[in-house]
C-alpha cells in the first residue's frame, strides 16, 4: 500500500507540474489579442478580510467589463488578471513580481503589501495607489513620486472626523472637555493615527485616550467596560479591521452606549461589518470617500449590461455595497488617469511613467463626474506633483438599520494635516537618502 501511494503521489506531482507548465504556455498564447491596458488585481477572496478584497476586486472588474463591452477607453480595452494574496505580504509580493511586467499600476489593498511595494514601485516605475490606506505621508508627491493616496488618507480622515464630531455636538467649541476614546486594533495600521489624534486633542481641548484591541480583536469586553463605565467616553472612534469592526457595535449596545456615538474608520464601514451586529449597529457612523447604494447612472449601467449578461464577478446581492462601490471608484480613478495620459501622450497602451503623469495631473471636476454618471458618488479630485492626495472631502455615512445613508461631507483640516505629512515625509526622505524633487520645476 505504501509504495502504491508513493507512486500515486509522484504521479500527482508530475501531473500538477505538467498542467502548470502547459498552462503557462497556454496563458502566454492567449494574451495576444489586440493591445490592452493590463491591470494586475491583488485580491483576497479568502481569509479574515475576504469581504473587503472580494468586494473591491469585483467592483473593479465589473467596471472594466462594462468598458470593454463599450469598446474600451478611447478604444484601448482592458485586460486583467486576479492574483490571490489572502492578505499575506509574501504572497502579495509574489503576485506583484509575477504580474509586474504586464502592469503599470498596482493597488496593493493591504498595509503590509503597500510597504513592500513602495520601494519596488519607485525603482521599477510602477504606480502604487493606496486609496485610503498605507502610509499617510505618501501623499507628499515630492518624496514619494510613485505613490498615490488618492483621494485621501488616514490623517485627513481623522481631522475630518474631529470636525464631524464637532458638528454633531453643535460647533467646534463644544469639543472642549469632550472625552473621545480611540479604539484601535493593535497593529501598526491601528497605531498610525494616535499622534494625530493627540495633536488634535491639544488643539481643540478634548481628551483622547487610546484603547488597543489585541489582534484578532474577537473579544473586546474589557476595553468596552473601561470605555463606557470608567472612562465614560462621549465618542468612540472605531479603528479596526475585519471582524474587530463588528464586535464593538455589539459590546456598545450591551452596555447601553448609543450607536450614534461611534464613528468608524472607512474600513469598518461596510455592510459586512454591520450586518452581523444586527440591530445593535443602528445609528453607527463611519467615514467613507464614495457614495453608497445603486442609485447612480453608471452603476445602473453596470447592472444592466454586465449583470444582465451574467458576466458579473460577484453575487448580485453585493452590487452596490460599500466595498463593491469602492472597487468601482478605484476603477474610475484608474480610468481617469488613463484618459488624462491619453490626452498628453496619445491613445495607446500606457507605460508606467505615462500612467504616473496621468495620476499626477488628475482633474476630475464636478462636470466630469456627472458625465461619468456618478453625480453625488464622489467628490472632485485634483492632484498635482506635490499633492498626491487630491481629494478635498471626506464623506460620512450612517447605518439606518438596513442600509448606509450618506449624512455629511466634510473637508479635512488641510493645513494642519499637510504640515505633518510634509514633516513625516521629510523624515522618511532623510532616512532613505532621497532628495525630494522640486515640484516647481516639474511641468
Amino acid at each position, binding site marked *: 500500500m505504501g509504495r502504491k501511494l508513493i507512486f500515486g*503521489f509522484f504521479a500527482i506531482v508530475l501531473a*500538477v507540474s505538467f498542467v*502548470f507548465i502547459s498552462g503557462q504556455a497556454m496563458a502566454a498564447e492567449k494574451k495576444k489579442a489586440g493591445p490592452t491596458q493590463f491591470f494586475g488585481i491583488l485580491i483576497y477572496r479568502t481569509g479574515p478580510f475576504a469581504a473587503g478584497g472580494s468586494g473591491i476586486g469585483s467592483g473593479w472588474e465589473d467596471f472594466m467589463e462594462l468598458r470593454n463591452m463599450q469598446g474600451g477607453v478611447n478604444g484601448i480595452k482592458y485586460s486583467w488578471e486576479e492574483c490571490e494574496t489572502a492578505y499575506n505580504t509574501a504572497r502579495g509580493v509574489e503576485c506583484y513580481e509575477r504580474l509586474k511586467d504586464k502592469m503599470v499600476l498596482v493597488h496593493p489593498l493591504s498595509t503590509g503589501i503597500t*510597504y513592500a511595494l513602495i520601494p519596488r514601485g519607485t525603482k521599477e516605475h510602477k504606480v502604487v495607489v493606496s486609496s485610503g490606506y498605507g502610509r499617510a505621508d505618501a501623499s507628499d508627491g515630492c518624496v514619494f513620486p510613485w505613490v498615490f493616496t488618492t483621494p485621501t488618507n488616514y490623517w485627513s480622515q481623522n481631522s475630518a472626523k474631529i470636525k464631524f464630531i464637532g458638528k454633531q455636538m453643535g460647533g467646534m467649541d463644544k469639543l472642549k472637555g469632550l472625552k473621545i476614546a480611540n479604539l484601535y486594533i493593535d497593529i*501598526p495600521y491601528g497605531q498610525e493615527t*494616535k499622534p494625530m489624534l493627540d495633536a488634535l486633542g491639544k488643539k481643540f481641548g478634548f481628551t483622547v485616550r487610546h484603547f488597543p484591541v489585541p489582534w484578532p480583536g474577537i473579544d473586546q469586553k474589557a476595553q468596552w467596560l473601561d470605555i463606557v463605565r470608567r472612562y465614560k467616553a462621549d465618542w468612540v472612534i472605531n479603528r479596526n479591521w475585519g471582524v474587530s469592526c463588528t464586535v464593538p457595535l455589539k459590546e456598545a449596545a450591551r452596555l447601553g452606549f448609543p450607536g450614534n456615538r461611534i464613528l468608524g474608520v472607512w474600513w469598518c464601514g461596510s455592510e459586512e461589518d454591520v450586518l452581523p451586529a444586527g440591530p445593535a449597529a443602528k445609528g453607527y457612523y463611519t467615514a467613507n470617500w464614495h457614495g453608497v447604494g445603486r442609485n447612480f447612472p453608471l452603476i445602473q449601467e453596470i447592472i444592466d449590461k454586465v449583470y444582465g449578461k451574467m458576466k458579473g464577478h460577484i453575487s448580485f446581492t453585493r452590487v452596490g455595497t460599500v466595498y463593491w462601490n469602492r472597487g468601482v471608484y478605484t476603477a474610475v480613478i484608474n480610468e481617469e488617469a488613463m484618459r488624462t495620459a491619453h490626452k498628453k501622450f496619445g491613445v495607446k497602451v500606457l507605460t508606467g511613467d505615462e500612467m504616473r503623469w496621468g495620476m499626477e495631473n488628475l482633474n476630475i471636476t464636478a462636470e466630469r463626474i456627472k458625465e461619468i454618471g456618478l453625480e453625488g458618488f464622489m467628490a472632485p479630485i485634483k492632484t498635482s506633483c506635490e499633492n498626491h492626495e487630491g481629494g478635498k472631502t471626506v464623506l460620512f455615512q450612517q447605518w439606518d438599520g438596513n442600509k448606509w445613508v450618506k449624512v455629511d461631507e466634510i473637508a479635512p483640516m488641510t493645513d494642519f494635516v499637510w504640515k505633518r505629512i510634509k514633516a513625516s515625509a521629510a523624515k522618511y526622505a532623510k532616512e532613505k537618502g532621497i532628495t525630494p524633487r522640486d515640484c516647481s520645476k516639474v511641468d
Partner: protein
Amino acid sequence: MFYRECGVLKETYAKDMAIFPIPLDRWGLGVMLVLAFVVIPFTASDYWLSSIMLPFYCFSLAALGLNFLTGYAGQVSIGHAAFMAVGAYSSLILYGRYGVPLPLSIFGGGIFASAAGTIFGIPSLRIKGFYLAVSTLAAQFIIEWVLTHWQWVSGGVFGTIDAPDMYIFGWIIDTPVKKYYLVLCVLTLLTVFGKNLVRGQLGRNWTAIRDMDVAAEIIGVSLFRNKLIAFAVSSFYAGVAGSLITFTYYLAANIEEFNLFLSFHLLGMIIIGGMGTVLGSFFGAGFMTLLPIFINQTLLTIMERVPSDIRANSEAIVFGGLIVFFLIVEPYGMARLWQTIKEKMRLWPFPY
C-alpha cells in the same frame, strides 16, 4: 549499483567521519551547489529569483533553525515567527540607525533573536510536549506586543521600519541576482555550520534529550544547558532568516508579517519536510511556501471558467488535502522519502 558504501575504503579517521562518505552523495551535493550558485542565477528570470527563490531560501533557514529545536532536541516551539521578527527589527536598527556593516547587522539580528529565544526557552526546563508548545505561544504574543508598543523600536508613527539600501563595503546590493547571492551565501554558511553542529557532541546531546530526557540526564547530559543552547541556536537561525527576508523581500519590518500563522507554517515545514534532518527543512520550506503559489497558478489555468471565489477556496482545499495526503503517505516527512529512495538505489538494479 553506483550508490553504495561497498568499495568505499575508509583509510583515515577523517574519512570515516566525513559528512558524506559515499562519493555519489558528494557529487550530488556538488551538482546542487553548482546549480544554486551558477546555473540558477544565470538562467532564472528575475521573477523566479526574487519572489520564488528568495523567500524559499529564507524560510528554509528559519525551518532549519526550528528543526534543531524541534527535530533534534525535541522541544516544540510555535513562537518562532516572533524570533524572526526580533532578528528583523534589530538588524534593521543596527544597520539603519547605528551604521553597523551589513553582514554584522544580519548576524547581530540573529544574536538578539537568540537572546530572546533563550529567555523564552526557560519554561522548557519544566514543561514538555504540547504544554511547552502552547507556552511558546507566549513568546509570540509578548514579542509582538513589545515590538508594537515600544515606540523607540519602530521610531515613528507607522510602526514599521523601512529597510535602507544595502551596501557591503560600498558595494550596493540591489538587483535580484545580488540579493540572491547574499541570501545563498548566508544560507550555505549556516547550513554547513548547522550540519556539523548536529553531527557533533551538541547534536548528540540534543538527540538524547529528544529521545528521552530523563535517561539523557542520567548519563550526564545537562538538560539545562543543552535545552537552552538549542533554543539559542534555533532562534539565532530564525533571527538571521527574519533579517534576511526583511532586507531582501519585505523591504520593511512590519510585525504583521511575523504573525502566529507563520509560526504554524514553520512548524508545518519541518513536519512535512522531515524532523531531525537538515535536508527536510529545505523540502518542507519548499512545500509550504512554493506549493500554494503553484496551486494558485495551476488552478488559474485549469479552472478559468470557475467563479473566482470558489477557485480561491479550492486553493485551501488542495493545500490542506496535500498536507494530509502527505502525512498519510510518509508520516516522517519528505526527507524520509528521499532516504527510502536512497536505500532502493543501493540495491538497484538487482533488488534481490
